[in-house]
């Protein structure tokens, strides 16, 4: 399997502090949450506006815990690593594709993932059948072209996996605490104690007009 490419118009991430005890409940035993402070881990919400892929354009929202990356001598160092514990998409085809190819855990119904921009901000509203799931706003900073390597970990009954993901595009990143997050009571958030998640992101990432490149999936040891 060669590199899998997804073109996007917008990819936004907010990074929010939440208790490590909650993070550990969301992670498989072989992964450790990364703690910016003792007892505090990082919940991230990422929303994609994909414009081209093997399954056409679609929207996607990824709820993750930031984890310790695997850093190996002689290999390119990842910027960071994450474990998506819940992924939602706007189309069945996108869901089937990501489950089959990447073993990512999915919410099995179509979601609405709507982006709106203005005033140096971008907002994504995520809902299912009109029932709100999340609303996140990310503020803009200076944008510059980047190519960053990330590690994405997956785990299911058959084993543990990792994929190297390269994110290319115009990136704005800052820690100005100008964004915000509202998580609504919805079974999408199962396992997450919503009231313990900070509503201000300590870091905000906005990438535009780029591509996400997945290396072939790697199997890690035993399940």
């Amino acid at each position, binding site marked *: 399997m060669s590199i899998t490419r997804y073109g996007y118009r917008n990819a936004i991430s907010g990074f929010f502090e939440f208790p490590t005890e909650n993070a550990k409940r969301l992670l498989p035993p072989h992964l450790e949450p990364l703690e910016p402070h*003792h*007892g505090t881990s990082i919940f991230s919400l990422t929303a994609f506006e994909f414009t081209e892929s093997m399954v056409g354009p679609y929207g996607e929202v990824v709820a993750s815990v930031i984890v310790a990356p695997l*850093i*190996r*001598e002689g290999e390119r160092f990842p910027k960071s690593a994450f474990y998506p514990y819940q992924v939602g998409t706007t189309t069945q085809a996108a869901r089937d594709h990501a489950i089959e190819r990447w073993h990512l855990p999915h919410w099995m119904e179509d979601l609405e993932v709507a982006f709106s921009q203005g005033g140096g901000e971008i907002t994504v509203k995520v809902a299912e059948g009109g029932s709100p799931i999340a609303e996140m706003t990310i503020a803009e900073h200076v944008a510059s072209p980047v*190519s*960053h390597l990330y590690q994405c970990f997956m785990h299911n009954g058959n084993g543990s996996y990792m994929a190297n993901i390269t994110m290319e595009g115009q990136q704005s990143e800052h*820690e100005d605490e100008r964004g915000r997050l509202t998580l609504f009571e919805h079974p999408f958030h199962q396992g997450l104690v919503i009231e313990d998640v900070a509503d*201000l992101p300590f870091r905000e990432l906005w990438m535009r007009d780029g591509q996400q490149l997945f*290396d072939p999936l790697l199997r890690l040891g035993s399940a």
Partner: protein
Amino acid sequence: MEAARKKDAERAPFSDYDYSSFYHGAGDDPVNILGPFAAWYQEALQAGYYLYSEPLHSAPSTRVLVENGKTGQLRELLNLASYNYLGISYREEVKAAAVEAVKKYGLGASGSPILSGTFDIHRKLAQAVADFKDKEASILFPTGYSANVGFISAIMRAGDNIFLDQYSHASIVDGAILAKSKTVFFRHNNPLDLERKLGRCTGKKLVAVEGVYSMDGDVCALPEIVEVAKRHGARILIDEAHSTFLFGPNGRGVAEHFGLDQEVDFHLGTFSKSLGGQGGFVCGSRELIDYLNGFSRSRFFSCNLSPILAAGLLAGLKIVEEEPQLRAKLWSNVAFLRRRFAEEGVDIGKSTSQVMPVLVNDDAKVFGVAEKIQEGGLYLQPVTYPAVPKHKSRLRISVSAAHTEEDLEQAVGVIAGVLREQGMLCR
């Protein structure tokens, strides 16, 4: 795999990574991380990390002889990096006291403070600190770090709750870790967030703040934080590392500055900042100090402060008490530098103290800026993520009472000149 190899061969800029990128290595061998870190660090050193830990060949006065980390050459630079806020550590009286002490006691304490390592000079220093802080008693620690670690882990336990400002010094965080208490971080200097978090906890509660925050130079919102903490039955610790001997009518610190000396429960400080020495202390009731004597493991499992240091610190403290004009000179210098930076458009953020960050706000460019500033004759270091938030890189200035206005004018000229070249002035 071909694509993966191609990508491995690509080199990301060193500034894409930092110390936080090398916390975890792959595999089961703890040394696996050393190779990847070394590969990055060698590049980082060349690109600017050499500016850290450049050896000084002279006393940390306003002019220092610095060994360049890249060329090894010695050069005299204007010192804007050392704490020494009152310019005391190299005063003749201090050096003389230290010399007398080394003649009398030799080099070190040669023992734990609870066994054979306590000397008469330690008792004198502890009493002098307690008197200065207007407290019943005080206890000395070998470093400020060990004071915070030792104090917090001595009085807090598993199941208790410790509320820390998100910009808390590592020693406060490490004390909380050692105490095994539940640690809750509140947003920096934000009493509303503290209130929200205190309201969700039951049991023993400790709120830890700092008088002056070391990376931003802003002063603790103590009146509001005390009010919130008291409403929720929480005890309050203030670490006055950067504010003792400077703030307040008598120099006791930020708690005195706000008239809240009696409202704050626990007063900690260091000797390494304003006195330019080494060591830490806790002040309070005799009951508290006796308890800490028996339960502060970071203290009694360390050798006591060297009696040479204790003697020098005692002499330094005498200067602080006898020369309040030093504090006045420091604040005059701070006001002068703030005004001049404002006139030149140099951004110092929220600083209202002698700690002044010159905000560069560019993690990739900050080392280049720092190099040019050193070439211009100033000694100061860049501070980058993770010590400060991403893209909040800065150069941290420590203003001293020993600086002259000519020194500070020289600093303004060099810094504003370099920032102007880089298009980094505010206006």
